[in-house]
């Protein structure tokens, strides 16, 4: 069953809602920058990502 989930673009950091069905793998494209590096947003990152603090802030 498809449900709405939050996705984050690993290229431009844009966050958006889209349909998600665990059983179906679909090609995803960031609506903001067109990248395919789109990751299902996890509820809580286990650890704070190391090193870089210079990433662009989330837009969406």
């Amino acid at each position, binding site marked *: 069953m498809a449900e709405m989930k939050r996705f984050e673009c690993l290229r431009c950091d844009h966050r958006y809602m889209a349909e998600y069905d665990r059983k179906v793998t679909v*090609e995803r494209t960031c609506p903001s920058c067109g*990248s395919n*590096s789109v990751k299902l947003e996890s509820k809580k990152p286990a*650890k704070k990502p190391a090193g870089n603090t210079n*990433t662009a802030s989330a837009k969406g």
Partner: protein
Amino acid sequence: MMDVGRHPKIKTLVNSEVEEVSGFVGNFRARIRRNPRYVVAEDCTACDECARVCPVAVPDEYQQGFSSRKAIYLPFPQAVPSAYILDMENCLGSEPIACGRCAEVCEKKCIDFDDQGEVLEVPVGSIVVATGMKVYDPRMNDEYGYTRFDNVITSMEFERLICAGGPSAGHLVRPTDRRTPKRIGFVQCVGSRSATRGVPYCSNICCMNTVKQTLQIHEHYQDASTTVFYMDIRAFGKGFEDLYRRSRDNGTRYVRGLPGNVEEDPETRDLVVTVENTTTGKLEQHRLDMLVLAVGLEPHKGNGKKTVDEILNLSHTSDGFVLEAHPKLKPVDAPTRGIFFAGCVEAPKDVKDSVTQASAAAARALNLLGAGKVQVEAITAMLDTEQCIMCGVCTRVCPVNAITASNKKQKQFPSIIEAACAGCGTCAAECPTDTIAMRHFSDAQILAQVEAILAEDRMSKILTFACNWCSYAGGDMAGTSRLQYPPSVRLIRTMCSGRVDEKFIWHAFRLGAPLVLVSGCHFSDCHYIDAVTWTQKRVEKVWSRMEKLGIRPGRLQLEWISAAEGQKFARVMRELHEHLHRVTPAEVEETIRILEKQPPVPGRSKTAVAAATA
């Protein structure tokens, strides 16, 4: 068609559907359902006695509904076999027999109301897919008043009207009053070349079909006037420009612009077409007796429960046409060896191109069978049963069904059918115990490339895995198109992005790669059917693991780039070059430190494998 029907070595199964195909090149097995015909074709002499007494009349599909046929009928005059068929849906009934007049008059006694059809299992060495095309249905959007005005017809319908074997014996008549139309208009690109109505691609044949039809009209009716409304005329084939010129010389007027409005005069049933002539910039009104819509083509994927794509595991492009193994080098081959394409199932094409392609497909199929052996490229997978835990992953992920299933109870290991293996490497990448190795694009080769790239000046490099067919070719396209992209990109070619094993990615990060890109074909273009979906799942898994370990997932990027997308390739590489500056040496060092404590594939320790497969 007659020659085919008579050929001693060609068996024709009409009124049949392929339900399932199993096996591999040289050893396919097709399950074919022959639907009941209710007439013994071998005995039928096509005397027409049965049709004469049949009381049922229904619209004749072959004549586009312009005339009727009986419930028992010959589908069309040149049908092979030349035998009648009973349309049971429209027959008055056979259980119990409600009419039975056809059976009464048939001297040969070839009507068989008890025909149940049959299921055949046929062994075949190669398969040619030639399921053809269907035309765009103008009813969906009521194109140019097609559903409201009877004198608006499609090019297919026009073809029947002007044909000597058609419902009016070749006399062009308009549907409302059976009068010969004197003013005939043609509208081009109906259902083609539109992002919102029909299909976005050019249907290839419509321009020349219209040119031909205008010539036919002027040949038969010297006093007729013809007008073609078009966006641009594509007369690109041999002799086509000449035909187009002849059409103009014969008096056909070509108006550059598609009608904005079509109305019908309720008294005369004439059509009033309003169009902006984009050459003159003026609004024109045309009063016509008949308007012909040059409808576009769409791929036809069969009439059965499953489409031909599903039966043969074929990939297709975004427009629905089947995808060839290589657009230039293997234009009639399917990615699955032993399967070939002919005609419009591959792309819209005219008769000449269809015949050319069919000849090529037949030659390719014959070549294969004549050789008796299949030469396999040395890129196939190998399986070492010693390490195999019979988890079944390889069988599940193989896009071409080249790996037989294992059976733990019977201690039966999976095995690779080398003749069927296409060498995508998805099995090798997914195998949790590294039981499967590739003959080429091996782990050792790819890991060595990773090491070589990162040996020096690693902070200025974007390690990119690119699949042979699409993203690598997209890079080539960028190069040949002289598109600039930063020199930081370092490519490692694999046959399919499905080959990119997690351990290649982790190895790169362990060696201090600041940024890794996995790139492959768009889902609809994947040359290994659905192997690309495994790439995405795998990258998602690595992202999630990176996050858990405290490594920024953005350092692993994913991109689908087709062979034609040179511009996208260059743009992505420019973007990633910018991205590269976000990664600091400290971040890379921290990643190396984190991964030092992890197994080669984090999360895939021996115990994890055992747990995952238990």
